[in-house]
């Protein structure tokens, strides 16, 4: 079935591409209608709608004879026969669609084309000229063609020159060039027709894609940002999501990790609800995942930020909308083949300089553990330390000084200098990215076909993880008749990610560094792997790398994730009259995820000559088991809407109304069974043991919406937009399914007023925008309104027969009967300004967003209720924010060539506050009224004790023994506080360091010490182009964000959390307090101080170790050079270097260079511990070829 589906989807895609290409070449049907017009005019009409070209003498009789023809999809001859029926004239159809017209009874020309040239049937000329830009620079590759005769066209050469033959008097020359306003010139004579083209006025004439249509940017009344193709195309990133990061200050896009197949977390203007919620991402009108989109296919991205702009999307748009529009072909465009080929490598963004000395690794951890509980971590004595000291500085094992020695009882003793980081991770890995696209169009059909292959090696060193993805897109627009257009858009995406290790990659990042001192090698001299060294090397229990070392060395654990996504969209557009269009489309999106996981028992040894096995009982990663999980999602989207846009003098009206329906179906199947007959064959068919898990899950949801939007403007001066949507969702009970969400916005282009005349020379545009809108948030569970029974669950460790686990069922919490939409109400005020002929542009927005009726646990119920509190719509949130963006574009002459440059910057901020929540006691840890989202409550530390005497004096007055100092008071050789320990401030002056009653009103010594919400999201970019050289740089950052490292943030805390961590920063000891280093950042070395809740740094956040995650990152730097050679073969040949995430500056680096500020809060296992797939910087070299 899997193979069949794959083949079917590929076949369908291939068929679509084939249709797209073949349709262009074979189209010949003519649809034309005219009545009683002179034959000469009739010929022009036919020329306009077909490829036919008529040649005749103007002195022929009967050219003014009235003719009538009305045909639909007729052949050329059918049309010609009708035109000349009963006429004194006849025709002969020759090559190249040339039609010679001659008088009946005379000799017809044998060679129509020759006759046309020779016979003076129609006066033609040769025209030539030079096409330049405003600065008289030649435009290379500009298209010059005769209007209505696309076959008669050329592209300008390297000097901007062109020559066109067979141009008749009265013909119109059309000049087109990307980025310039198209122009046309009527031919009156042969000879020179030079033309200077004007750059398109990108700001005032820019058209922005909005919901179910497009609008001129100057007429927008909602808050909409646009990211252009040039800002995302060509970036050396795996997908569109990473390319869009930081592109707009309102778009907060963070990757879950730096992994090749990581998902993206997106929000616009912050979270819209405490329950989360993501913006609606539509790719060509279909809801899709940005990580599955090829950034090179993107034409533009519109970010609809306020409710007014997003209202037309209703139920799913409460968190904003991201509209991605992919590229399309152009009518009457010569075919263009573009290739963007690049290869490069990736490296970690952070320092990987860790302690690799066995001596120091063991010494630091032993000392930390000794100071905490009185015992070192290892049982190494002074002789063992001498052995490690003698091997200090040896990066490889030598025959004279081996790293593992058998003891008299045949256990291994280890004295290695093992670099565990390099053992597990690659510091440099290759990537390749190949993009090809073909685009073009004829009079009736245009097409865009693209394909991409992307390969990336992952960071894992052993049995390297590999990611590869393939994507294709084919778009075909057919002008069936003058009033009917048909569009088909297909896309296909497939990715495969293969890796060794356990199924849970985050578990690897979380556990593999445990019990992995640099003094432990990976393998024993006999090749067996290290695992259980409890009591042999260590005082307590220790399994080297928590089993990952042995597991990866054995290499039988295999994991494979395969994503496939196929989309086909068919659309028609009917234009009965010029001001009325009717659109309908149907899209089918199929997504499939196939996940395979193979686990096996793993061999290890701690004794020379004896091999043991790690099995499932010892570690659940090592069951002999195979798991297959398959997810199939289908989404069907139907849109039908109509737009009328009549104008009455200066009154312009545009009304859009329609229906949107979405049917979603989710199917998940999982099978997991033990005891396979071979460790090398991965299939459920050869499993003979216990079925561990068997799941069959189906979810459906349906959303229907009726929407309408009215745009009105008076002379482009006063702008008004009203829209509303009536939405129904199957996620709510029958009586609560439907909601109406209205919005209104208005704009005033004061720059169009008469009083503006005196400043119009330098002030190009000015507009004030105001909007209000209400949206629904349906992002709740599929069946939250129903109480559910979960069956087919197995009791852990409970059997009746000793082998089969006991099944059981459980009931979910009772639902609230009136569960319904969360409502998001947004007020927005904006200002758009353009100066100096739109070279300087400014946009600013301020907003308030109220989220009402958020779904959360309702009021506490008495214990006799017997179930958890049902969720209800009972919390409110208010978000306030603002955004500013400014840009400058200009060019000037430098050494005879045009120097183009642009700079731009944007910044945005928001803050969210709870305005309603059922927490009457104001308990900290739950939301409460007045809470700013992201608040970090913590204690205050004002330094380290400088002497034992000072610490003793402190203890006389302050009792911290029950909370922050509990362990220090009760454990280890240095009980009680000493010099170098942290000094907490008794904020409430009650002689204790406690959290009080844990409420806002009685927080003890805790206060709000920071906030984890990223604030002041900013970016700035600049670019220059000169003499074929182009340089662009894009910086992005966060101005404020606090982070308290979680108790597993091991590369930050080192042994202050766990005293057996592999990755100690190389400069760790220089930051640790001792008598010689009293100003150190970290306190007296004691293990677990940052780990346990009764310890000085683990009891909760504190001011001393609160970190700032503010950063500025050079997100992209591209340097390219367009070679001025081989113009006869290539329209463009450009070589370039592109670097992504090249460097960053952050206050975090002061005390931690090993954690990227963007991954600090990420983790697959626990929060705030940065134990996840790290971010990468990439360096790539590429070539752009266009021909």
């Amino acid at each position, binding site marked *: 079935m899997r193979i069949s589906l794959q083949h079917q989807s590929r076949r369908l895609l291939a068929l679509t591409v084939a249709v797209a290409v073949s349709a262009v070449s074979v189209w010949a049907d003519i649809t034309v209608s005219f009545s009683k017009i002179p034959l000469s005019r009739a010929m022009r009409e036919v020329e306009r709608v077909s490829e036919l070209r008529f040649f005749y003498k103007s002195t022929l009789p009967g050219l003014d004879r009235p003719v009538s023809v009305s045909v639909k999809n007729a052949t050329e001859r059918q049309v010609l026969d009708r035109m000349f029926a009963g006429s004194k004239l006849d025709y002969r159809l020759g090559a190249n669609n040339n039609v010679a017209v001659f008088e009946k009874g005379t000799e017809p020309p044998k060679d129509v084309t020759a006759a046309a040239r020779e016979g003076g049937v129609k006066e033609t000329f040769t025209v030539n000229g030079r096409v330049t830009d405003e600065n008289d620079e030649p435009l290379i590759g500009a298209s010059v063609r005769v209007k209505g005769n696309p076959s008669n066209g050329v592209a300008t050469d390297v000097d901007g020159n062109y020559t066109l033959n067979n141009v008749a008097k009265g013909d119109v020359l059309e000049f087109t060039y990307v980025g310039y306003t198209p122009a046309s010139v009527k031919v009156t004579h042969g000879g020179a027709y030079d033309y200077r083209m004007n750059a398109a006025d990108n700001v005032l004439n820019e058209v922005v894609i909005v919901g179910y249509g497009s609008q001129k940017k100057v007429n927008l009344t909602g808050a909409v940002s646009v990211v252009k193709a040039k800002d995302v195309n060509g970036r050396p990133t795996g997908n569109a999501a990473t390319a869009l990061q930081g592109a707009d200050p309102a778009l907060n896009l963070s990757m879950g990790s730096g992994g090749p197949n990581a998902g993206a977390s997106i929000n616009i203007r912050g979270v819209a609800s405490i329950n989360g919620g993501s913006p609606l991402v539509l790719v060509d009108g279909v809801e899709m995942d940005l990580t599955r989109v090829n950034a090179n296919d993107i034409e533009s991205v519109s970010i609809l930020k306020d409710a007014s702009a997003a209202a037309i999307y209703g139920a799913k748009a409460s968190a904003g909308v991201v509209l991605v529009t992919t590229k399309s072909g152009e009518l009457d465009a010569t075919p263009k083949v573009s290739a963007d080929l690049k290869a490069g490598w990736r490296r970690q963004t952070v320092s990987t300089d860790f302690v690799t000395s066995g001596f120091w690794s063991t010494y630091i951890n032993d000392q930390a553990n000794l100071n905490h509980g009185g015992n070192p971590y290892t049982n190494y004595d*002074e002789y063992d330390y*001498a*052995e490690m000291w*003698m091997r*200090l500085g040896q990066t490889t094992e030598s025959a004279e000084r081996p790293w593992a*020695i058998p003891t008299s009882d045949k256990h291994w003793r280890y004295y290695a200098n093992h670099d565990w980081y390099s053992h597990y991770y690659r510091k440099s890995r290759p990537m390749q990215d190949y993009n090809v696209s073909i685009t073009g169009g004829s009079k009736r059909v245009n097409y865009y076909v693209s394909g991409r292959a992307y390969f990336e090696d992952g960071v894992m060193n052993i049995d390297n993880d590999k990611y590869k993805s393939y994507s294709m897109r084919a778009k075909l627009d057919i002008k069936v008749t003058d009033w009917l257009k048909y569009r088909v858009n297909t896309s296909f995406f497939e990715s495969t990610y293969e890796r060794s290790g356990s199924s849970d990659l985050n578990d690897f990042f979380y556990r593999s560094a445990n019990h992995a001192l640099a003094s432990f090698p990976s393998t024993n001299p006999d090749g067996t792997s290290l695992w259980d060294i409890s009591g042999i090397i260590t005082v307590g229990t220790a399994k080297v790398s928590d089993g990952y070392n042995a597991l990866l060395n054995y290499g039988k654990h295999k994991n494979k994730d395969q994503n496939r996504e196929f989309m086909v969209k068919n659309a028609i557009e009917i234009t009965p009259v010029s001001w009325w269009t009717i659109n309908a489309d149907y899209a089918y999106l199929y997504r499939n995820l196939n996940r395979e996981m193979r686990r096996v028992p793993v061999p290890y040894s701690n004794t020379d000559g004896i091999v043991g096995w790690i099995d499932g009982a010892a570690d659940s990663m090592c069951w002999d088991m195979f798991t297959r999980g398959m997810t199939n999602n289908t989404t069907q989207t139907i849109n039908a809407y109509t737009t009328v846009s009549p104008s009455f003098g200066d009154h312009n009206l545009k009304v859009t109304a329609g229906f949107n329906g979405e049917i979603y179906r989710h199917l998940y199947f999982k099978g997991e069974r033990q005891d396979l007959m071979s460790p090398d064959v991965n299939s459920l068919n050869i499993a003979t043991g216990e079925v561990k898990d068997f799941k069959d899950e189906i979810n459906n949801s349906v959303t229907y919406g009726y929407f309408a939007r009215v745009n009105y403007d008076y002379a482009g001066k006063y702008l008004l937009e009203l829209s509303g949507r009536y939405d129904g969702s199957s996620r709510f009970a029958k009586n609560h399914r439907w909601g109406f969400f209205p919005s209104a916005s208005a704009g005033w282009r004061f720059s169009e007023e008469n009083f503006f005349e005196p400043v119009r020379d330098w002030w190009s545009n000015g507009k004030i925008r105001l909007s209000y809108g209400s949206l629904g948030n349906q992002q709740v569970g599929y069946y939250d309104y129903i109480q559910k029974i979960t069956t087919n669950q197995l009791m852990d460790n409970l059997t009746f027969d000793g082998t089969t686990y006991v099944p059981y069922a459980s009931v979910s919490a009772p639902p609230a009967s009136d569960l319904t939409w969360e409502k998001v109400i947004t007020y927005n005020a904006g200002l758009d300004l353009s100066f100096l002929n739109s070279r300087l542009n400014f946009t600013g927005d301020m907003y308030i967003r109220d989220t009402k009726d958020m779904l959360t646990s309702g009021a506490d119920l008495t214990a006799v209720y017997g179930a958890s509190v049902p969720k209800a719509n009972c919390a409110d949130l208010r978000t306030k924010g603002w955004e500013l963006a400014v840009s400058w574009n200009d060019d000037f002459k430098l050494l005879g060539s045009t120097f183009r440059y642009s700079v731009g910057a944007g910044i945005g901020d928001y803050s969210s506050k709870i305005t309603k929540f059922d927490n009457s006691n104001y308990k900290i840890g739950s939301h409460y009224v007045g809470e700013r989202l992201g608040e970090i409550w913590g204690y205050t530390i004002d330094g380290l004790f400088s002497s034992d005497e000072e610490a003793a004096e402190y203890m006389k007055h302050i009792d911290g023994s029950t909370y922050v100092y509990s362990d220090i008071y009760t454990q280890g050789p240095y009980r009680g506080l000493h010099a170098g320990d942290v000094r907490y401030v008794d904020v409430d002056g009650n002689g204790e360091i406690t959290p009080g009653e844990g409420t806002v009103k009685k927080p003890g010594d805790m206060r709000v010490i920071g906030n984890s919400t990223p604030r002041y999201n900013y970016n700035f970019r600049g670019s220059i182009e000169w003499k074929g050289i182009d340089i662009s740089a894009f910086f992005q950052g966060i101005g404020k964000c606090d982070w308290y490292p979680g108790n597993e943030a091991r590369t930050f805390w080192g042994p202050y959390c766990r005293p057996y961590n592999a990755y100690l920063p190389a400069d760790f000891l*220089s930051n640790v307090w001792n008598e010689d*280093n009293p100003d150190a950042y970290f306190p007296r070395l004691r293990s677990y101080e940052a780990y346990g809740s009764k310890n000085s740094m683990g009891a909760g956040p504190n001011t001393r170790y609160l970190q700032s995650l503010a950063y500025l990152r050079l997100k992209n730097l591209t340097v390219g050079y367009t070679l001025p050679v081989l113009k006869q073969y290539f329209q463009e040949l450009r070589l370039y270097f592109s670097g992504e995430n090249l460097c960053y500056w952050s206050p975090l680096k002061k005390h931690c260079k090993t954690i990227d500020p963007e991954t600090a809060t990420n983790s697959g296992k626990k929060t705030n511990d940065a134990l996840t797939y790290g971010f990468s910087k990439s360096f790539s070299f590429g070539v752009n070829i266009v021909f």
Partner: protein
Amino acid sequence: MFKTKCIYYLMLVLLLGVVPASCSDDDSTHVPSFSVIKVTPEKDVYKVGDVVRCSISQTAPASEDLRDASYWWYASWWFADSEMKADFQEFDADGVNTSSEITLTQAGDVTLYFFGRVEFPNYDWRKVEIGKKIKVVE
């Protein structure tokens, strides 16, 4: 001309100032200096089963910020033998450190080592490793 001369002399002064500064060693912390290892009895070739002692003299003291130091003797064939332990010894009043008796058990070119761990403040610990190769025959 005057201006050129001024620039020339200025450059010269800068160069003379910068080069010595960049070459200067401001690291005042240093480990002690030692003589070569003396093996007693002194022979050109030793036999397996011979018993020797090694000694070494401190020729210059460590810098004043020395916190602690430990020294030991070791032989190259001990590295692979967990039964052979470092022979920790201290310097006597004459500044001489002498090993325990070492029985030569392996033929070939073997090395007798003097190791030291010299501890300065703030975990600035430095390694001393001095070896003497001797020939041992069956």
